[in-house]
């Protein structure tokens, strides 16, 4: 059984094709993340699920019902908006109970629900305030409360955290995660923050230009991106893309890397059958910052490279340094205690077992 099924949905504004045939199916209780750069159509898709935008083509099912042409109020959904969209003239309590009131829930029951929800979100002391009197995080919580009170079959979130500052964002992120674990309702969540996507989702759909690029579990998407766009989009700092040349020497695949004036040939121990045909050609090597670290215990499949350090950024738990490999800037994540100096050479270790390759023309992953 699916909780939500989106079948070949398209959307055009005038002549512009904003969504080009989206297919998604998720199971009850799953947490689906829609992620992608600005303007890729995430909000549009979410609004169509909510019934706030008309569907140009295709169908949307919630549970077994075809809701494609239903009014928002008949879809049994709740939504949390980026700007929270709290009703400014109502108190927190009224904000939360408004949806119940409209659905003619009895007063006494409304009371019970509001109490329950506000307890869950720890906003009991705020119930009689107006939204203006709340801080960002509190508003965010009230917006969630409003959605929760309704107990719908699907929650829709449109970048609910993007208006919060970094610290609060981290906190609220955990709360949402926990809430989902506790309440267990199906959630569709839009964001363009990859960390949120990674930490919250059961399933992530990475979108670009109105198309889904890849759909899968966070780890799957992080470790096995299907193309360069997905690889670059997920993860912060981003995956490093190093153009390089593949050679087959004595039946062994090798990749050429240049650093600090020295040329190195690295052996590729992974078995990537598709790579064979690229022998002698250019490819793009993808490696994540945390896969280039300071010298340490020797791993099975790692390669050493002396690099000139161009920028050093300590972030606290780690330090990011920027080096130049094959002429492109490469970010590496090293331990804060590791010794490094600006403009000095530093030996770095590349975890070749995690390295991925892309075709430079199609930008598709080479398997």
């Amino acid at each position, binding site marked *: 059984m699916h909780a939500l099924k989106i079948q070949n949905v398209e959307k055009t504004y005038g002549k512009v094709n904003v969504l080009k045939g989206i297919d998604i199916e998720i199971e009850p209780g799953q947490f689906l993340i829609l992620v992608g750069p600005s*303007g890729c159509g995430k909000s549009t898709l979410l*609004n169509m699920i909510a019934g706030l*935008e008309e569907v140009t083509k295709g169908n949307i099912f919630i549970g077994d019902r075809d809701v494609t042409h*239903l*009014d928002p109020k008949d879809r049994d959904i709740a939504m949390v908006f*980026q700007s929270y969209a709290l009703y400014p003239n109502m108190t927190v309590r009224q904000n939360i109970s408004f949806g119940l009131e409209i659905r003619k829930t009895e007063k006494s029951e409304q009371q019970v629900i509001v109490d329950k929800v506000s307890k869950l979100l720890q906003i009991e002391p705020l119930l009689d305030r107006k939204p203006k009197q709340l801080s960002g995080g509190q508003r965010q919580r009230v917006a969630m409360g409003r959605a929760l009170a309704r107990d719908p079959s699907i929650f829709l979130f449109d970048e609910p955290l993007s208006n919060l500052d970094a610290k609060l964002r981290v906190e609220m992120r955990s709360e949402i995660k926990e809430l989902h674990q506790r309440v267990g309702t199906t959630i569709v969540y839009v964001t363009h923050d990859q960390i949120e996507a990674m930490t919250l989702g059961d399933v992530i759909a990475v979108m670009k230009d109105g198309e889904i690029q890849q759909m899968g579990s966070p780890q799957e998407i992080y470790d096995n991106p299907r193309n360069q766009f997905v690889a670059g989009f997920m993860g912060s700092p981003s995956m490093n893309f190093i153009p390089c040349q593949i050679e087959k020497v004595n039946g062994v695949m090798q990749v050429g890397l240049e650093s600090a004036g020295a040329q190195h040939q690295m052996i590729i121990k992974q078995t990537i059958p598709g790579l064979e045909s690229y022998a002698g050609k250019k490819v793009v090597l993808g490696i994540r910052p945390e896969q280039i670290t300071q010298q340490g215990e020797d791993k099975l499949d790692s390669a050493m490279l002396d690099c000139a350090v161009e920028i050093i950024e300590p972030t606290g738990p780690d330090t990011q340094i920027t080096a130049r490999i094959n002429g492109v800037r490469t970010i590496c994540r090293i331990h804060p205690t590791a010794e490094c100096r600006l403009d000095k050479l530093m030996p770095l270790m590349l975890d070749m077992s995690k390295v991925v390759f892309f075709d430079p023309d199609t930008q598709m992953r080479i398997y």
Partner: protein
Amino acid sequence: MKKKSSAPRQSLGNFLPKLVVAPTFVVAVIFIYGFMFLNAWLSFSSSRLLPTYDWAGTIQYEKLFANDRWWVAAENLMLFGGLFIVICLLLGLFLAIFLDQKIRAEGAIRTIYLYPMALSFIVTGTAWKWILNPELGVQRLVREMGFESFTFDWLVNTEMAIYTVVIAGVWQSSGFVMALCLAGLRGIDDNIIKAAKVDGASMPLIYRKIIIPGLRPVFFSALIVLTHIAIKSFDLIVALTGGGPGFATDVPATFMYTYSFTRGQIGLGSAASMMMLMAVAAIIVPYLYSELREKKDEH
């Protein structure tokens, strides 16, 4: 910057919003455009005392163009409208700027500037006539203060009378512009001013280069309202000069009223109002077009 999310879409068969604006739509079609059409027809008819919907060709326009008084009226509108709008904008702007300097009695002063808006010239006409009258008003007052040779007789001077109309018009409307400008000033981001200060600009320079250009949308709003007032000004002139001395202060609005209603030449009056409408359209339509277009581009 975040894009605004799109307006909610209505689901199929939801006619309610259209139904709600329908009365206004009908009203606009009948009572604005329908009546404009009737007026256009009348301007080609031979109507005199009462409207007759016949066809008389362009004779009314020929008569209109041969009418000295019409050209005086048209010229007056240009002169009055131009001066009225420019002075209102400047005065309103300066009063707003001064009022925006954390003035202690701001509320009271603002009310004083604004109150003329509340009064029609039916109410204040006589007082104005007295004030501007050389024998009763300012001239006499100043002379009694000892400046024997002081002269302020614009009201009774054929050449200058139109300027007294400008004075009274400015008195009535500049407060509104002031309020608009004040609102605009309050809406300007403080940080922009700070940035300019850090850049080394002095306050007058900041006003000239940053703040006043930033009030552009306010000026446009004000311009629309002022144009509307200038073109429709009728009470003002009737109360102050009655179009006189002679018909030196006649404007198209009083012209068409006189011919349509007092002189029983409705055809001619209609032709005059068509000319007025076309002048308005020439100003307003391009503005509206650019405004609505610009809005779209921004989103």
